[in-house]
């Protein structure tokens, strides 16, 4: 088995230490960071994403795989930066102001990272100003918002209105998701995409970044 396949398999098993060791070994053997990332780590996460979508695995298995991927990608980050390799896209993500629920948002973040996106997670209870400031700071492609409550989902419109007022609406794609959110709500508030689950959110984010 090639070392890249081995990285992918250990990642799928959630074995963080093994992934770290194998990534280091691959670097030492002279493989490029880009190849290790794409054909080892992201290939493994892609299988995880598919299995999750097909209900072959569940949230805990996805989370430990993502944790293993992060351990491997930490080693690659400086090498990727010095080689000028850029992420597939940049996403600023958070749960909107007034809402403290985060597991859905965390799963979306992990799935997006598994697609090679650079994700900046602002956590929960995030204001419009915080979303905009972070997106400007990191030169994001996408602002992604989550809400679990019917009383806080309206905050998504507040964020979009603030983005418009700042003259930035054409700069950022806006994604929304969460329990009460629907496609019709997405249209009503002028977001670019609603996705009903984490795997679709990650796929949609990649498409939106590619289309920019």
């Amino acid at each position: 088995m090639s070392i890249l396949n081995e990285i992918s398999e250990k990642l799928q098993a959630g074995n963080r230490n093994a992934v770290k060791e194998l990534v280091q070994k691959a670097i030492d053997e002279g493989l490029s960071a880009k190849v290790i990332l794409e054909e080892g780590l992201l290939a493994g996460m892609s299988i995880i994403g598919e299995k999750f979508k097909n209900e072959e695995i569940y949230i805990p298995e996805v989370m430990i795989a993502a944790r293993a991927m992060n351990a491997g990608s930490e080693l690659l980050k400086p090498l990727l930066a010095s080689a000028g390799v850029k992420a597939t896209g940049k996403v600023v993500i958070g749960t909107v102001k007034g809402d403290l629920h985060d597991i859905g948002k965390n799963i979306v973040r992990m799935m997006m990272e598994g697609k090679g996106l650079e994700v900046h997670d602002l956590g929960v209870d995030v204001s419009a100003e915080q979303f905009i400031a972070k997106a400007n700071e990191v030169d994001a492609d996408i602002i992604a918002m989550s809400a679990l409550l019917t009383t806080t989902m309206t905050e998504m419109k507040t964020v979009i209105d603030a983005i418009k007022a700042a003259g930035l609406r054409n700069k950022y794609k806006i994604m929304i998701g969460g329990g009460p959110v629907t496609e019709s709500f997405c249209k009503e508030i002028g977001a670019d995409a609603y996705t009903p689950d984490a795997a679709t959110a990650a796929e949609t984010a990649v498409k939106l970044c590619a289309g920019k």
Partner: protein
Amino acid sequence: MKRNMDSWVKNVIASDKRLAMPIITYPGLALTGNTVLEFVKSGKKQFECIRALAEKYDSIAAVTVMDLSAEAECFGSQVRFSENEIPTVIGKIVSDEESISALAVPKPGAFRTAEYLISTELAASAIADRPVFGGMIGPFSLAGRLFDITEIMMEMMLEPEMIKALVAKAAEFLQAYAQAFKDAGANGIIVAEPAAGLLSPEKSAEFSYEYLKKIIAAVQDDSFIFILHNCGNTKNQVKFMQSTGARGLHFGNAVDMTLILPQVRSDMLAFGNIDPVKVIKLGSPNDVRRSVRELLDKTAEYPNFVLSTGCDTPPASPLENIDAFFESVYDYNNR
């Protein structure tokens, strides 16, 4: 009021009418004019709301309040309250073997659990025409609130024995809490275990249903039954949910009831699963009527099916939608 719940279950199944038991306690606040904040802190106000709902609507049982933060609060979790939203647990109080081992198991009646027991006692003595069900969280969901739900998802895979020690403490408290509901006069209890819906069927059994099985074996009898609610993707978990011994299973709107009902034993009640947010809170009365009719049509061949909402209905859901829910059941039965 004490009643034989075994006979009640049999009568529900034998009924020639389609029956309903939505979880609508929070929208009931519109009948008593209280805020959520007043409500979750006062057993008397909860009782007034439960009684008002029982007087207005033809539900087969009265259901007390479920906020799923009261139990964690007893263990020491911080809870964020707001005027019109259901309380939420903030942060975590255990993070490793040492803190789990040091965690004291509280007594039922600590903090706001006292209010839920008061509301149950008042409701059980005042409402005579139907059973009164208490409500509490499930052991894995409670452990998730104490440990942080995202982190418990990983640690259960990496340090399973440590997480099981925490679930065991949650279960110890919940067994005593369920017994306290029984002692307060409830005829049963709805146990909400949403976090188990995020797990594989095998892990849900290992980290939740095995513990529930013990709680149910200790507390359930002819006068007091358990209804197990899981609003996650339970399509592949039904046999494990049944193995807990609960007399009823309550399903969320993440699943298609036509895939669930063939799996449920015919002597058990199966509740579900009108979307409480997209239909009851955000939809129109016509949306509610359409959804109820469709679900009743799809489930017509299952006498053990009881129409319900897929989860707790959010506060401030329009009462006209609740009216439409019950009118649709009435119309269906009188076609």
